[in-house]
């Protein structure tokens, strides 16, 4: 099984770190992984995206031109990447910030009000984790426990108090997937 994922949004929405967390979790589960960012001026406010591959086989191209899943956090990202999802693939839309629906009917589309949920949890910054929770529920690309194991490593020490918040965000995201 090979997951070829595009994650995209505004700079500052945590798209890059969402990808990195997923790649780290994949690695922990013994998979082959790669994380390829878009880089440059768009990091400072424009649209940022990264390509993550998680696979049981050695990874060829680190680029993702045909995605098994796309996670879009804002409208420009939906406009840009909807067409790149493989037929039968998944498209996760942050419905808090995206006012239009997907146009394709050959893919599975999920609407997640990530920012609203994040605000309910107390900080808009955690919207990326809500989306990640929904993503792993849909694809099983990584286990929630593995992601939390990695989060716990990163936020050990004085930032440890935000670990439960991340766990809650993943759960709330997953709850959006029926």
């Amino acid at each position, binding site marked *: 099984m090979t997951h070829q994922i595009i994650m995209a949004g505004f700079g500052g929405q945590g798209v890059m770190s969402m990808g*990195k967390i997923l790649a780290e979790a994949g690695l922990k589960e013994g998979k082959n*992984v790669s994380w*390829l960012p878009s*880089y*440059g001026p768009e990091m400072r406010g424009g649209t940022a995206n990264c390509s993550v591959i998680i696979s049981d086989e050695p*990874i*060829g*191209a680190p*680029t993702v031109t045909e995605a098994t899943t796309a996670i879009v956090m804002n409208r420009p990202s939906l406009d840009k990447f909807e067409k790149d999802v493989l037929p039968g693939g998944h498209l996760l839309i942050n419905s808090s910030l995206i006012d239009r629906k997907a146009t394709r009917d050959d893919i599975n589309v999920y609407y997640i009000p990530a920012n609203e949920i994040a605000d309910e949890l107390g900080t808009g910054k955690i919207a990326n984790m809500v989306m990640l929770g929904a993503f792993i529920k849909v694809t099983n690309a990584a286990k929630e426990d593995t992601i939390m194991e990695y989060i716990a490593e990163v936020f050990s020490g004085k930032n440890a108090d935000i670990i439960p918040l991340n766990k809650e965000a993943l759960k709330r995201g997953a709850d959006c997937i029926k």
Partner: protein
Amino acid sequence: MAKELWKGNEAIAEAAIKAGCRFFFGYPITPQNEIPEYMSLRLPQVGGCFLQAESEVAAINMVYGAAGAGARVMTSSSSPGISLKQEGITYIAGAELPCVIVNIVRGGPGLGGIQPAQSDYFQATKGGGHGDYHLVVLAPDSIQEAVNLVQEAFDIADQYRNPVMILGDGMIGQMMEPVEFTEVKRRQLPEKTWATTGLRGRKEHNIINSLFIDPAACEQHNLKIFEKYAQIEKNEIKVEEYNLEGAEIVFAAYGTVARIVKNAIKALEKDGIKAGLIRPITLWPFPKANFLKAAEMPSVKAFLSVEMSMGQMVEDVELSVKGKKPVYFYGRTGGMVPTPKAIVEEAKKILGGAK
């Protein structure tokens, strides 16, 4: 040691430190900034020295001074910055100094762009600056390979007293992949008895120099350097052959493009077309013999060089194949990356349509 997720640029920097590099001189330029940033933090921790120079020109001349003084030293940059370094690089080659130069290539010409490219192939493999000389050019296709090659690069540089270039595209610098810092086998290296350390009791003074005003002496110096290059061509070629048996079409690709080509090869296989790949890992010395051998295989109908350039390595492929089979080119440039799909279509076009 377990595998860890590393960003290419940072992994390259750490690999250099593991190889005993203790001096780094550089100047900021995208997309390689994580290398100097990482070095600025790490080198002081291991008793080394990082210095941000006033320009790429100054940085490469600091490398010249430090290499001449006997240190393991590295610099990194990206295409426009590497152009600026060319003066220093030819002096380093002329003075026979060992060092490692990393080029995380971006689109050109001129200021170009900042996205991945392979359009510095000519510059890297054919000299780059003035005069007759070569760099040893290593082109990794993954972060793991980059880590291994960087470590070996310092040994190659010291063994032959010649600069070695790591040629990676922006993707190699920016992506993250699992890496294991395994112990790379170290070579037996000669003492740097030629280094300008200060006499410290030595009787004869050492001179680091690339000036030979007498033409006969200058020619002799060139001949000596080229004897060394002959040894490098004999000993140091690295190449990956993939899926060549029974291949109708053989791709030539290096770096990350080779991985994209591998995806295309799998897709072609599903359509009943056998395709193979020759991936030069050393771009200089170029694995000519591998290409010639493939050209003599009856199954092979054509070669297709796939590059992120307007066609540079393709010339070396043509020279290697010696007209025995047709050589085609497909490339994207300016920061655009070829897709497996487009490569598949190109291969089918060459072979005369889908089966």
